[in-house]
């Protein structure tokens, strides 16, 4: 008797929960509440150049849906090749499916930093990509891609150290005329792909003071991982 009462109670309890759920649905169906106002989210992205003598080309900052602008082991996109060989971020910023973009106004020199603010609504989960070339190289870049931001609450911040990638689209000859940065003033983008055609981590530059006599680079142009620090803060 007592047991069966318990069972009944349990059934009633479950029924209430189900009904409650149904009520909620019915409310939505019968008297649709106004669409919730989209909440605007603003992120501040700061990049710090912690290299010795590698200016970073005008930075491309993008918020987008879930997608990677590059992947180690894959061939680089044409847009990434244009950025990583010549420092021109326009094709990367024109990536399809972006929610917001910002472009650096000028190169970010060693020891300098630059901040960007991007605002999106909360209707779609935002993923961050940041890309910039190490301009005293053939085709080295640093950045991050497809970083989920949805876990960041207001005033939350995350910081990460960035490695150097090799686009794999131009041999790392370090030769005169092949490097667009101030160490050379040579050619930027060239559509020919004469290297591994695979994005990898960068092996580092050698320089003429090391064991590459024909290099226009000097000891100070060498770099190690990490090369930059990225700080992402949700400010709104």
């Amino acid at each position, binding site marked *: 008797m007592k047991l069966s*009462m*318990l069972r009944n*109670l*349990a059934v009633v*309890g479950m029924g209430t929960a189900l009904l409650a759920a149904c009520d909620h649905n019915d409310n939505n169906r019968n008297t649709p509440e106004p669409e919730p106002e989209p909440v605007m989210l603003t992120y501040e992205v700061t990049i710090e150049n912690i290299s010795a003598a590698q200016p970073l080309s005008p930075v491309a900052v993008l918020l987008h849906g879930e997608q990677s602008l590059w992947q*180690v*082991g894959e061939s680089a996109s044409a847009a990434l090749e244009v950025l990583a060989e010549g420092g021109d971020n326009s094709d990367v910023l024109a990536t399809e499916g972006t929610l917001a973009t910002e472009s650096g106004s000028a190169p970010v020199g060693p020891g300098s930093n630059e901040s960007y603010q991007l605002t999106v609504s909360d209707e779609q989960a935002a993923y961050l990509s940041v890309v910039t070339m190490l301009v005293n190289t053939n085709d080295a870049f640093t950045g991050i891609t497809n970083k989920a931001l949805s876990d960041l609450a207001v005033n939350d911040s995350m910081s990460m150290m960035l*490695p*150097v990638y*090799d686009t*794999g689209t131009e*041999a*790392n*000859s*370090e030769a005169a005329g092949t490097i667009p940065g101030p160490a050379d003033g040579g050619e930027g983008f060239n559509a020919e792909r004469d290297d*591994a055609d*695979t*994005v*990898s*981590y*960068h*092996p*580092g530059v*050698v320089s003429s003071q*090391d*064991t*590459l*006599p*024909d290099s226009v680079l000097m000891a100070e142009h060498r*770099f*190690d*991982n990490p090369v930059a620090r990225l700080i992402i803060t949700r400010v709104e």
Partner: protein
Amino acid sequence: MTRSNLFRLMLSAALAGTAVQAHAVDVEVEVQNLTRGIYFTPLLVTAHTPDQSLFNVGEAASAELQAMAEGGDISGLETAAMAISADMVANPAGGLLMPTASTTATFTTADTNTALSIVGMLLPTNDGFVGLNSWPIPQEAGTYTVYLNAYDAGTEANDEIRGGGAPGAPGMPVPPPLEDLIGTGGSGVTTTINNAMVHIHPGNLGDADMMGGQSDIQNTVQRWLNPVAKVTVTVTE
């Protein structure tokens, strides 16, 4: 009174559910070679008790580790791992793991094997290896990422010229495709071992002369900066 009984019933049901879910941990280990031009010889991926290790920075390499680091031979380490009842996958890539390539090892860990270690030789080097030493395997289901550094076994001078892979043999082993990718006729970078303990590898020097110079390594391609590998561990219960 009735209510508290109900709560108790619900609680015991919840506990029963938890108990059913608790069983052995399955581990999937994906290793990606991040480098531009370094090949990994057959990897040994192993879960073992935390009090064991394949290598320790600052300590001398075992003979088994030396055979792996100088010649890519993991058979000695496999035997040692078997002797301590480790769970392991040997040579998941079925040969060399090419630059930027990935390979996956999957195994179920015994209850006490909660530490993950990975080793594989780096080519072209004299006694360089990629290593993970006794990383605590999370017991919570999820995906975890670890980046690995390049180590020097400290057992062979880094002369950077063609040679052999047998323990104690000078020079670097050059199996295909390495034999066509590196230079020849180098005079040798050094004959000295500066640190005979396992240490962070100073990196390849190389040179720009494929037919001579001091090194048979190509300086613009076969160098690296740490990390050299990305390990993605997926734990399921």
